[in-house]
Every structure is written in C-alpha cells, then in structure tokens.
C-alpha cells in the first residue's frame, strides 16, 4: 500500500464511525496497542515540548527505512501516535519528509484539536519530519 492508500484507509475508517465519541473510543483503543517504548530512549532529548501530555519520539534508520519509537503518558496521544506511525513507520526518510499528512484534516482531527497547544499533534508531525530530513 502506498502512503496515501494508508491515509485514505484511515479516513474511511473514521468516516464509518458515527460520532466523535466513537472516533475517540477508536483512538483510545489504538493507544492501548502502542508498543511500549524502551525506557532508556525516554530521554530529555527525545521529549517533544508543546503538548499537554508528555511525548517521546525517537527514530532509527535501517535498510533505508525509518523505524519510529514513540510513547506518551496519555492514551489519546498514544492513539494519535499509532495513527501517525501507521502512515509513516517503515517508510524511506524522503517519503516521510515529503508526504503531505492530509488524513488529520480529512478525519477532522485538526480542526478539532488545533490550534491549542494542549494536544501537540502538530508538534509531533513537525518532529517526525525533522527526524526524517536529518536521515535523508
């Protein structure tokens, strides 16, 4: 699947969910599935600021693909990270750096969450892109 196929898939999933409560239930349950991050990686340098919840993000490059490790102390943020990683994980750095992340908007998460700093979804995406650009 191309990166945009994945995004479209997410959009479809959300479209099928009836209301915001269901959508958040879905996000929360995704959050529960996020693989635990190695505590050694939860360093100050890997902390993203600007979010109400704590967010850690780290990436390795292997065989020309990015492998992300991320975590948060809030379940919803974990779920949002899951969505982002569905799209971005195991993709080549250039793809990650260049991809337009449109699913957030389409799903309605951006108008719903921005521009408050509480969520920091924008911060997370920005940091993913920075890591990708460094890895190119």
């Amino acid at each position, binding site marked *: 699947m191309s990166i945009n196929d994945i995004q479209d898939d997410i959009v479809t999933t959300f479209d099928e969910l009836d209301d*915001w409560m269901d959508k*958040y239930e879905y996000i929360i*349950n995704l959050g529960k599935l996020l693989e635990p991050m190695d505590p050694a990686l939860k360093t100050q340098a890997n902390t993203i600021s600007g979010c*109400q919840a*704590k967010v850690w993000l780290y990436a390795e490059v292997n065989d020309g693909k990015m492998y992300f490790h991320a975590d948060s*102390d809030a*379940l919803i943020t974990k779920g949002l990270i899951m969505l982002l990683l569905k799209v971005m994980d195991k993709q080549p750095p250039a793809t990650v750096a260049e991809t337009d992340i449109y699913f957030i908007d389409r799903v309605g998460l951006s108008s719903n969450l921005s521009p408050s700093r509480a969520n920091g979804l924008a911060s997370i995406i920005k940091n993913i892109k920075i890591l990708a650009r460094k890895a190119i």
Partner: protein
Amino acid sequence: MLDIDTIRNDFPILREKVYGKPLVYLDNAATTHKPQSVLDRVINHYSRQNSNCHRGAHFLSEQASAAYESARESVRSFINAQSPAEIIFTRGTTESINLVAESFGRKFVRADDEIIITQMEHHSNIVPWQRLCESRGARLKVLPMNKKGMLKLDRLSKLITENTKLLCVSYVSNTLGIVNPIREIIDLAHRYDVAVLVDAAQAVQHIPLDVQEMDCDFLAFSGHKMYAETGIGVLYGKQRWLEAMPPYQSGGGMIGNVGLRESTYAELPLKFEAGTANAAGAISLQAAIDYLQEIGLDAIVNYENELINRAVESIASLEGVIVYGDFPQRCGVVSFNLENAHPYDVGMILDKLAIAVRSGNHCAQPLMEHLGISGTVRISLALYNTPQEIDKLIAGVEKCRDMIGSRYVTTK
C-alpha cells in the same frame, strides 16, 4: 434560592449545542460566559455614546467619560474601596499584578529585599515577582502548603524578616478551590509592616469583597471571570501606595504636561491609565456587577456552595478517583484525577460528551509539583450551573473510567 431557569436564559451561549449535545460548561474559572444584559450594555455603549473618554469636550465624549467614571464608581462600591482614585482599570489580573511588580518594585524594592509568594499561586502571581526579584537582586520566598492543600500559616512569621516588602497571596486557589484565611494573613503581615497584594481572580465572582475590612494593600481581579468582557480588569490599591508609586505605562491620558525633555503626571487614577480607556470593557464590568447584585451575592454564594459540595461528594464517592485538597468548604473549584488515567484523556472524553472541563496544570506548576503530579481535571462552577449538570459530569467520569480502563481491543 436562585431561579436557575431564568438565569440560564440570560446567557445566550448556554443554548448552544456541542457535538449535537447541550453544552455543559464547567470551565468557569478559566472564563465565565456573559449574560445578555452585559452584551446589551456594550452594544448600547457603541451604538449610542461611543467616544474617547477624558479627551474631547463634546456631548458624546462627555457621555462616554461619565459612563466610564460611573463604571469606576460601581467597582469602588462593589469592593467597598474608599475612593474611586483607588480603582485602576487594567486589562486583567495579570496586568494588575505586573503593574504593582513594576511600579511598587521600582519604588520600594531594593537589592536584598524580599517578596513572599505562596506555593499555590497562579503563574500570573509568580512570574512577575520572579522577574522583579531577578532585576532588583531581591529574594523570592515561598510560603509552603501542607498535605491537605492549606497554607502553612505558622511558617509565615518565620519567613518574614525586616527586609520583606510584600506578600502576594491568592484569596481563592484556582486549582484546589481553597479559600485562604485572608484577613488573618493580612493582619499578620501588617504586624511586621509588610504590604499585601491579594489575587482575587477566583474570589470576586464567588465571595463578597470588602477591601477596607480586609485591609489589603492591593487587590487584583479580571472582568472576564465575573461575567464581563475580556480585556478589562481592576487593580485596587490603597491611595497612599498609589500616590507614592511611579506611573506604569506612559502616554496620552496619564500626563499633566509634556515637554520634549520632561513631563508631569496626571492625578489618580488616570496616572495609571495610559492610552485610550477601554470604556466598553469598564461598562461591561459595571453591567456584570449590576447583574450579580440584582440576583444577590448572598444567594449566589449559598447556591454555589451547595452545588460545589454536591459535586465534591459525588466525585469523591466514585471508585478510582482522587480528589485533591482536604478542607471543609471549597469555593467554585474541584480538582481530581482518575487513577492511572492522564487528565488530558479524561478532559478529551468529557469534551466529546459536551462537558467542558479543564485538564492540565492550571497555570500552577509549583502546586502540581507539590502534589507530585503533572496535572488534574478541574471543574469550576458559575451561578448558572445546575445539579443536573453535576450528574452528567459524574456519568461522564464513569464513562471515562470505562473507556480508559477497558481491555477492549479493536479488530481494525
């Protein structure tokens, strides 16, 4: 008893739906909504008497100036200040405190002097003092809290030295809702000749204030937290302090004579009001005071206390919930957490149920550190909230617990 149906009808925003559900607004400590009478008064001002105050001598300008000064008189009487000269209109609590930090600081705070704040202050009553102390080489001291969330008053007399110039303390904590024994604190400070600034941002909408009885030296509050517009607030200061302090901002309106080299300043209160007055804001504050007084502040206090007690009891009775602070009577505010849940998750889920609460550190990071947590879920009440809304909140928190705690695994 308040006639809550009528009151709710006064607030147009309470008819709004959020995600298709009726709005349950429990974030009143952040800002309250505005009754129609306040909005009407603002519109009436702009539609009938708008003009620059204290500048022109034409009819509209006289009308606007008179309205602005009448608003000042309403505020004076509302907090029982001695004179309208003691009422400075500012943008809000934050600016009022900054004004004192800069102006009182410039005149009275020297190297090695001390300012005392408390551990439960809002950032707006912390950072200006940090900056003042930094720029003057003064020391910032902190009056700590005990485990129950109460100030350790017995420490105060030990903290005060002959270098202590000012004690800055909130009347009501915006996070725990505790009402500090303000008169006791002020009496103690005055015994050592220490002036006291009271942050009344969370008190003025819930408790009748009498600055003369309280005997505070300064008192600050915001219009937007007491049913008035944003962009207007008040600094009360005892006249002898305000007389002695240099102006804060400068420009049109606060000067007597301006030469290119030197200027003299206007009398109180205008000396502290540089630039075009926010007359509409002041008038909205007057309208809000009128609104509160029509309903009756005593009736409001009774109603809100009953409501907050009901809220605390119901929340505390839920399993897996921690309520912060342990003291008899909360004012307006309760903070809590779900065990093992991040307050952000709880806030977001409640939001989807159309229940607006605030989650986070509530601009009180030092208090959070004292509690050993990164944030809480906070509900805060206004006079238009109802027992039914508390019930919805309780059901909402239970729903949060289920959702966050459940082991349900999506198959997608």
